[in-house]
């Protein structure tokens, strides 16, 4: 069953017959169709090598589709000029499995860095970084370095950094992949909270428990194809569907 988007809302993301073939010939995505309305919370599930990260790289225009079109907020990414990339990326908050924090900067500086590179004034940087750290519950860790923090705390800093420009869309590639289940669950709560504040969240994950419990929209991909798109699915059903296809 493929659920079409609610057309009363303009979709924030729309993939139309998207194919991606890497230079070495790997066909990572095949004819992917996907529509994500604003405010959605979507899990992208699938086995390792299914094409989840590829889809995310296409969404942040790290890669271009070989065929097909991707629209985000009405802009076609394949046609976007290189000089427009930075302003596009400011609309998207990115979170990774390996956090990607700068080890020489404190938690506060890591968050502030995202604003500094945009040339924001010191006052603005201070206030907004402080707010972002408060949202993720790290107000007491401003001056702590990444190596002095737990994985969960580091991921919170990364989330604060992704939030600091108030992006419409948060894209996360296996954000709980390096965390123990309890910590992973806390991080997931944080994403839910962010979603409730209005940001659209698209998350690739392996964490079947979380997917099963949260009953959010689940898009399963297998071998580069969308095999299931479920409004309130679970990991097992999604994978069962992919098993059926195989």
């Amino acid at each position, binding site marked *: 069953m493929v659920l079409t988007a609610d057309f009363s809302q303009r979709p924030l993301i729309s993939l139309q017959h998207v194919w991606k073939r890497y230079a070495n010939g790997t066909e990572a995505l095949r004819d992917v169709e996907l529509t994500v309305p604003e405010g959605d919370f979507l899990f992208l599930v699938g086995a390792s090598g299914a094409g989840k990260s590829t889809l995310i790289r296409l969404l942040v225009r790290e890669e271009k589709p070989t065929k097909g079109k991707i629209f985000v907020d009405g802009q076609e990414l394949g046609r976007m000029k290189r*000089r427009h990339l*930075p302003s596009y990326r400011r609309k998207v908050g990115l979170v990774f499995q390996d956090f990607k924090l700068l080890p020489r900067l404190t938690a506060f500086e890591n968050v502030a*860095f995202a604003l*500094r590179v945009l*040339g*924001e004034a010191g006052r603005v940087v201070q206030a907004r970084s402080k707010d972002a750290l408060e949202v993720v519950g790290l107000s007491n860790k401003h001056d702590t370095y990444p190596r002095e923090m737990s994985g969960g705390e580091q991921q919170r800093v990364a989330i604060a950094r992704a939030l600091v420009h108030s992006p419409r869309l948060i894209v996360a590639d296996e954000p709980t992949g390096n965390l123990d289940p309890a910590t992973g669950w806390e991080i997931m709560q944080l994403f839910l909270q962010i979603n409730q504040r209005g940001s659209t969240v698209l998350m690739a994950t392996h964490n079947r428990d979380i997917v099963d419990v949260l009953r959010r929209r689940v898009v399963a991909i297998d071998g580069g194809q969308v095999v299931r798109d479920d409004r309130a699915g679970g990991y097992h059903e999604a994978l069962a569907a992919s098993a059926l296809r195989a």
Partner: protein
Amino acid sequence: MKLWRHLLFALNSAWQSFWRSAAVSLAATATVTLILTMAGINLLVGHTLAGVLDQYRARVSVISISVADDTPLTTVTDFEDQLRSDPRVVGVSYLSKDEALARFQADPVNADIARQIEGNPLAAKLEVRVGKLADVAAIDALARQWRGADRNDPTDYQGEFIARMLRLSAWLNLAGVVILFVLLLISIFIVMNTIRTAVYHRRHEIEVMKLVGATEWFVRGPFVLEGILTGVLAGGLALGGLLLAYRPFVDRFHSDLFFVPLGYDPAFVGELARDVLVAGALLGALGSYIGVRRFVRV
């Protein structure tokens, strides 16, 4: 305001980046210093040679026409007027037999011979200063056709010598330019490779900058500044060395090569300083610009 913050950020990260890979940065600075020193020596030698050549040029652009003893003075004045009205001629002066002798005797080099001279064997002379070195041959031809000239030794013009001087100076100029060009190319290449190292050291930072939406030139700026910093630092060091060595060097060779009019030119020091520093900054900027275009893509 925003620009100022960007500049501060770039300066700060350039400085940190320079010292983060201190070994590479300092090695590059040392190499570029060496190269700029060589380039500076090239400039100094070129300038000094140009000075020497200019003196030769000034000397050879004057030809001296010996007047036959039996030439009436009016013929001489007529020819003098003819030369004066020639646009290629800058000046003409007449030296009578007596004056020629007096001048000959006044030169201490000729002291021995002068004592043995009986009467006045010297010819009167017309000294003609020609504007362009290339026109000297034509004026010489004119003088040789003049019937008042001494038949045995009409002028002191040495055509082949002048032609050779001109060719030599052209070659020296060309060689200087080629050497400078090669040296600068090598420096640019070295700076480019330092930038490659710096980019590698900062790859995580670059990745984070990209993902939070920093513009391409915001990411590249600090590296370009780092290149300029390397170039200017190397230029300053090279200049210091050159200035310390210039005077003693000239003094030393002045006494060895007394026949070459080698000179210390304080006016050239300012020019040299400007050239070496600007060259350092430019090659730093160019090397890092190329490096960054190749290695930093957003």
